């Protein structure tokens, strides 16, 4: 597999999302939407149910599981840092969010399950893996806070639209064609477990 690094403009279009292959690297310029909140995802479900409006225009956008610490200074928000969080806890909500909002890029760290990967295939969406704990590096890419939704929520639960320049590199961990590096790794590990156990037994002293 040859790995390619792409520098791309966000929000990602469906066509651009389809050009990416699992294992590729992406450096992001443009606009992204981030949140790290479980309550936020539950509230977004209510929005899709028509119970309240979305906190901002999210249709066809990017939604990353990235927490941000924003502070309000003289009527504007300033983001002090961003950091990815584990996406798997949002598994129950993501298929519906991906399809309901027609997302073309999601991400965070740790991956999403098969139901999400299937939804991503339907909307032409990629999952990008950011460096966990890479807060210092990743925060350097933030240029501007464009919009803060649900500012009454805890800072990292808010829905924040950012302008970034050179964010990443992030790994395309699930592509828009249904290929998931997480599923590959889990399958490979499970498949090799009997052999690894045999090796552990064979090499044991005494």
């Amino acid at each position, binding site marked *: 597999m040859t790995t390619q690094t792409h520098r791309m403009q966000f929000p990602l279009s469906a066509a651009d999302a389809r050009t990416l292959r699992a294992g590729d690297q992406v450096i992001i310029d443009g606009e992204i939407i981030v949140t790290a909140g479980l309550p936020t995802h539950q509230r977004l479900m209510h929005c899709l149910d028509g119970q309240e409006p979305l906190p901002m225009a999210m249709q066809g956008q990017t939604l990353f599981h990235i*927490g941000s610490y924003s502070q309000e200074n003289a009527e504007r928000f300033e983001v*002090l840092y961003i950091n990815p969080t*584990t996406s798997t*806890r949002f598994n129950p909500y993501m298929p519906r969010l991906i399809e309901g909002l027609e997302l073309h890029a999601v991400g965070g760290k740790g991956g999403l399950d098969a139901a999400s990967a299937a939804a991503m295939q339907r909307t032409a969406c990629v999952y990008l893996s950011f460096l*966990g704990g890479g807060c210092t590096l990743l925060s350097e890419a933030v240029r501007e806070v464009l919009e803060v939704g649900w500012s009454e929520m805890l800072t990292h639960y808010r829905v924040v639209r950012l302008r970034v320049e050179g964010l990443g590199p992030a790994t395309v961990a699930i592509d828009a064609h249904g290929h998931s590096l997480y599923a590959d*790794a889990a399958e490979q590990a499970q498949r090799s477990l009997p052999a*690894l156990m045999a090796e552990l037994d064979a090499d044991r002293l005494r």
Partner: protein
Amino acid sequence: MGTQARFSGNVRQAITDGFAELVASIQPPLLPHVTNPLTLERGHHGKDMPIVTFDMVDDQDFVDITCSPKALGSGRWAALEIFSFPDLHTIEEFVMNTVLKAGSQPCPPVVIGVGIGGTFDYAAKMSKEATLRTIGEINPEPILADMERRLARAINKTGFGPMGTGGDSTAMAVHINYAAGHGFTPVAVSFNCWINRRTRARIHNDGRVEIVE
């Protein structure tokens, strides 16, 4: 905690106050991640926070305080199971299954700490402390030194790799502690993410504070 260390004043309160001062002063600020498990409300304060555990070290006149923060990435995947008279195969199989369950999620390459024996709570404590051991230090117990070497090799053949997107580096180290017990043998596994953040301060009896790491 050195048994020759001298204390005066309310030490528990000082730790709580110290954290409150950190919350008030540190830039950029700390996230309000202290969660009440009954209401799921979050903030900077909560019952028993910061959680403090300690051990005693004979003949020392200082106190070491280690701070090793971790979150949903690596703290979430710790596991403990109680076995009855397990052989080494059973213990190693539990570690491997726990690593497979954590999979891509704990920000690999991780440091894995294992605690074998003692009691339910003590095994968990040993596994957590094991993650703090200096990487590269050889376990003085030959059975465990061998187990650490074999487990590290096996875990690095699982294929999860950095950030779980595939590769040969899943564990930076496997560190194992043990204690004698009854025969019902708890085995605990803890993870620390690759960032492996930590700092340790040593407070001497004469009031000197030394940053050890």
